[in-house]
């Protein structure tokens, strides 16, 4: 489904990814783990084709999705036509809009006859708290609720491939559990997931496969279980 080939990107003159390769197959949950500054967010922003200055410029390699390169696709088309959604680091919800409007705006690019009602129902059943607060200005939501909204919004775009950048960031343990339960349920309903996590333990337990990224390079890969048992990974990311 997604194939990253020798991808090199840079911010200005600083190269942030030095040729990384990995794949995500249809229906999979794949995770990218790595320390701060390793290049995880950079990878997702490159795939989403977001513009400078926040996102980097691709200088070599390719991003292939369903057999076609995404390099010359604009970011709105990545969502509107390729149906790839990104839940960005830091959530980026529209705080001046209500919860419901945040979900509604994500349907901007859906076809006229798309079933928006079902989409709302699905989001609200995954995250009942959002339904309770649907009229509320989303700025006033708690951090965890904002994260749910960010994920819900990605679902509303009608994507079948979703990339999540640290969805557990800043959430209380019980909310992290809920979040991953919701993601699991989405995956069982045919959503392919590419997940970034600081919390390697949770990520590796949750994902089918994973890659370890370190200062812009992939240094290990395998199934979640394999990586958890890999001594180097254990030492560096799982606290011994």
């Amino acid at each position, binding site marked *: 489904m997604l194939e990253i080939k020798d991808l090199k990107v840079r911010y200005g003159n600083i190269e942030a990814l030095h040729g990384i390769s990995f794949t995500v197959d249809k229906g999979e949950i794949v995770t990218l783990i790595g320390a701060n500054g390793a290049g995880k967010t950079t990878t997702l922003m490159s795939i989403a084709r977001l513009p400078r200055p926040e996102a980097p410029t691709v200088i070599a390699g390719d991003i292939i999705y369903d057999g076609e390169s995404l390099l010359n696709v604009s970011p*709105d088309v990545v969502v509107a036509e390729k149906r790839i959604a990104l839940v960005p680091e830091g959530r980026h919800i*529209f705080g001046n*809009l209500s919860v419901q409007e945040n979900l509604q705006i994500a349907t901007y690019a859906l076809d006229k006859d798309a079933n928006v009602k079902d989409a709302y129902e699905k989001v609200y059943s995954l995250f009942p708290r959002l339904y309770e607060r649907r009229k509320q200005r989303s700025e006033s939501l708690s951090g965890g609720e904002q994260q749910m909204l960010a994920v819900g919004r990605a679902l509303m775009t009608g994507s079948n491939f979703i990339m999540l950048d640290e969805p557990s960031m800043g959430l209380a343990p019980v909310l992290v559990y809920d979040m991953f339960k919701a993601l699991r349920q989405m995956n069982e309903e045919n959503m392919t997931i590419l997940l970034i996590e600081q919390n390697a333990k949770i990520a590796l337990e949750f994902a089918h496969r994973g890659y370890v990224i370190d200062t812009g390079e992939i240094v290990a890969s395998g199934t979640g279980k394999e990586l958890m048992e890999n001594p180097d990974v254990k030492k560096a990311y799982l606290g011994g």
Partner: protein
Amino acid sequence: MFTSFFQNIINALQWGSFYSMIALGYCLVYGVLRLINFAHGDIFMVAAYLGFIFITFLFKYIFVGGGVSGWLILAITLPVVMFFTSVLGVFIERVAYRPLREKGAHRLYVVITALMVGLILENGNLALFGASSRKFPAIIHRSVISFSGVHITNLKVLVIIAAFVTFAFLQAIVNKTKIGMAMRAISYDKFAIPLMGIPVNKVIVFTFILGSSLAAVAGVLFGMSYPVLNPYMGMIIGWKAFIAAVVGGIGDIKGAFLGGFLLGFIEILIVSFFSSNLKDLISFLILLIILVIKPTGFYGVAKSTKI
């Protein structure tokens, strides 16, 4: 006493209407791009000239014999001028602002570019029409509505109605349509807009169309009310409208709208109590004091609704 008071209110509303319609253009572009579009006052000036050119053209080639209702001419002129002014606004965004944005240039450079665009419009106009001022054709017969000693011209009423109608229309677009929602969203977080499948540039182009159209309405009505046109007419009025927008709270269209009227009232009040020479001095002092007390303007909130 009562009659002059009422007269003043009408004048304040009329000037407030001009300021508001222009202030809204600053406000819209600022909300979406965080750009103070210093060329906007000159876009208003160009709109007045476009009205002048188009009406002259109508009289010369289409309605040669005369005898056509002025209202009909206005009804034809407004959409045409709105269209061409929008083309100008979008063109400026396309050739001057967008390339800088795409290169990731600092906002300061874009603001300076906006200033330069304004100067180019003024001097381009000077080159085309020369320094002498032009007379806007009188299309609507100025009639005076009088009751209990108060005289109101039909043009003043028209200007005031136009300001409220365009504002209501704008409110509806911003609050009720999909693209309006995108405008509100982009003012809060531009980064996430493409992630919703929305092309950022489309929202920006639409914003310039709205702002330029408002300037076009203001420009044509201004030409009809004060028929002497010159290339620098947009400068002072543009500056004033911009300040009005800031005092109202540049992030909010309600703020910009009210700010325009506030300035209109302050000016007329000063003129009726002091000499009109002091008008700008005192009104800017008042606005300065308001801003010092409340730097975000009446409707400005730190990071909330920006449109």
